């Protein structure tokens, strides 16, 4: 499916196309654009925290708006659309169907993202990606807050439409010769994450409307002055967004399931264990949402239930790690750029998971809750695991999308800088949390340990920034001027098993 190299097309032909690879390309470009925008905000936040006191950001309100939009952008406008990009390119091919099940719906789901993103960026709300009431109801300035609510509403509908499309494509449109057990693990990851979206997301969609009517003053669901309960919002929110964490991570794991066997030159150790782990994660993911809320004054019993529910999700994640290591064992591994990202992602996935176990152990929540530990912990997931898997996969599909090869040495430099930077930022932030620094603060007292660790974290963030700039340059240059890829075997793995190219999908 060489899009540009041999047959250049005007931009509008791609934009108004409903073909799955064209929609996938739109998803890819949009999500990477938002990655760089959100990343720029992160660099500004880190620069501001380099010293105590006010540095480059004028006031705390601007700072609060920046971390809110940073989080919202990278979760909803980078991670979700980039997963959809990969899914659009590969799921129909993997289940051997000519397109997504509903091509027009697919295009509509994509075209809801730009307006949603515009609402979030033009509004620039300040109430964190979690939009906590009663702050978000009585205190957050409009119209920014209302624009955020509408933006999220649109993005939520887009997610649901995309999820329906993936589920139908995989379950109903797969080739009749193919049993559900033979569906590749990448497609399985989209099936399980889409099913989670369909069950989890409507709850938040309802909560958003309640938040909006609360803000308009016509209801008081979450406003204690009117008899509402802000903790109810927390339950509704986390009932959606703890499973959503698995929605984000499962496709990234699926991408690793595609990369690691290819570059190890061995099939996956156990396909069935991968499928089982996805399914278990998708179900058990719903039993742990309130572990985000220990500090809201939950009873001992409630905490125990949600701790057990959280720990129950760990074996499934551990099965993935086992599967990856067992696949590499006995292989002949070529460490091209995608493989380096995937292996780095596994290493950080373990660290992130171990941190999660600590968070869920009830009394330790008194130490870690809402401190920089938590920031470090979930960034190890979203950056260290999800972004690493995704970036590796973007390198992997680069020849497939453009027909050209990226610059391999620059890709490796990108990986090394980003890996070092990620470890510097997020491991340091764990320790910073143990020293008691709260998250979401614009300024901090000049406690020597806090200052030192913030500076290490900022330097690490700048390394990541440099590496991402190298990546951007590499992608732009290589997509126009890169060496033409050998489409039979772009990574020189010595086989004809460069999967996507085996199945030629006609443009319809």
């Amino acid at each position, binding site marked *: 499916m060489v899009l540009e190299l041999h047959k250049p097309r005007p931009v509008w032909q791609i934009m108004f196309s409903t073909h799955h690879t064209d929609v996938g390309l739109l998803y890819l470009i949009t999500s990477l654009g938002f990655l760089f925008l959100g990343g720029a905000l992160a660099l500004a936040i880190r620069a501001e925290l380099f010293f105590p006191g006010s540095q480059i950001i004028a006031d*705390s309100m601007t700072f609060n708006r920046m971390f809110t939009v940073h989080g919202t952008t990278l979760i909803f406008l980078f991670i979700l659309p980039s997963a959809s990009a990969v899914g659009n390119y590969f799921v129909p091919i993997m289940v051997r169907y000519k397109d997504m099940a509903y091509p027009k719906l697919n295009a509509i789901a994509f075209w809801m993202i730009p307006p949603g993103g515009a609402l979030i960026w033009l509004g620039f709300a300040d109430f964190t990606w979690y939009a906590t009431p009663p702050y978000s109801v009585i205190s957050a300035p409009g119209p920014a807050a209302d624009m955020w609510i509408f933006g999220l509403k649109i993005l939520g509908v887009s997610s649901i439409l995309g999820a329906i499309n993936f589920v139908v494509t995989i379950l109903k449109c797969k080739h009749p010769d193919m049993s559900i057990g033979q569906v590749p693990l990448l497609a399985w990851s989209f099936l399980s994450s889409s099913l989670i979206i369909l069950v989890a997301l409507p709850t938040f969609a309802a909560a958003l409307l309640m938040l909006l009517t609360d803000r308009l003053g016509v209801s008081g669901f979450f406003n204690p002055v009117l008899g509402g309960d802000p903790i109810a919002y927390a339950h509704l929110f986390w009932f959606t967004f703890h499973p959503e964490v698995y929605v984000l991570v499962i496709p990234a794991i699926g991408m690793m399931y595609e990369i690691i066997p290819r570059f190890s030159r061995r099939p996956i150790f156990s396909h069935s264990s991968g499928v089982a782990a996805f399914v278990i994660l998708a179900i058990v993911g719903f039993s742990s949402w309130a572990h985000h809320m220990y500090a809201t004054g939950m009873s001992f019993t409630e905490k125990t239930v949600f701790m057990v529910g959280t720990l129950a999700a760990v074996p499934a994640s551990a099965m993935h790690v086992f599967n990856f290591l067992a696949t590499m064992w006995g292989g002949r591994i070529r460490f091209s750029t995608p493989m380096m990202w995937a292996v780095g992602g596994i290493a950080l996935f373990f660290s992130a998971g171990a941190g999660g176990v600590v968070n869920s152990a009830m009394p330790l929540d008194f130490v870690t809750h809402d401190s920089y530990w938590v920031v470090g912990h979930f960034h190890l997931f979203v950056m260290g695991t999800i972004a690493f898997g995704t970036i590796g996969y973007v390198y992997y599909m680069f020849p497939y999308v453009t027909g050209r090869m990226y610059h391999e040495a620059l890709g490796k430099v990108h990986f090394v800088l980003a890996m070092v930077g990620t470890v510097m930022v997020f491991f340091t932030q764990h320790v910073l949390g143990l020293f008691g620094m709260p998250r979401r603060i614009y300024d901090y007292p000049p406690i020597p340990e806090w200052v030192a660790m913030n500076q290490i974290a900022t330097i690490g963030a700048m390394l990541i920034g440099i590496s991402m700039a190298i990546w951007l340059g590499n992608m732009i240059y290589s997509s126009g001027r890169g060496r033409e890829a050998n489409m039979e075997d772009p990574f020189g793995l010595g086989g004809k098993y460069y999967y996507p190219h085996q199945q030629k999908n006609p443009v319809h």
Partner: protein
Amino acid sequence: MGEHSNWPEWVYIGVVVALLCWVGAEAWNVERLVEHVPEDAETIKVVGQQWFWTFEHEDGTKEIGELHLETGKAYRFEITSTDVIHSFNIHDYVVLLDAVPGRVNTVWFAPTEAGVYDIQCREYCGLIHYNMRGTLYVEDPT
């Protein structure tokens, strides 16, 4: 696929599950111990609002932004808020609980060392969240 033995994976899963049981049991036990409030604990009412802390002792004395306690006594905080959610935190004594409007949350501790400690807000609460700080003075009983 299918030509290798699966028992290493089952052993591995068994080890993971055993470790998680250990983590759960240990955490459960410590939580049980720290949640057991001594009967003679003095009650301190804590109110969070944008963007300062107010404390009321059992004898009715009020303090704003600072709190004076004595070593060797147990204190039970009854924490609430008048506007948005805050989180009452004395990190040096691992005391942390949200101040939620419309609810009273309780947590207790017994200071052991005289000294000056930071009190901070650990839940985002708006403009001056970063500076919603207070000071805890722990003194030896006279």
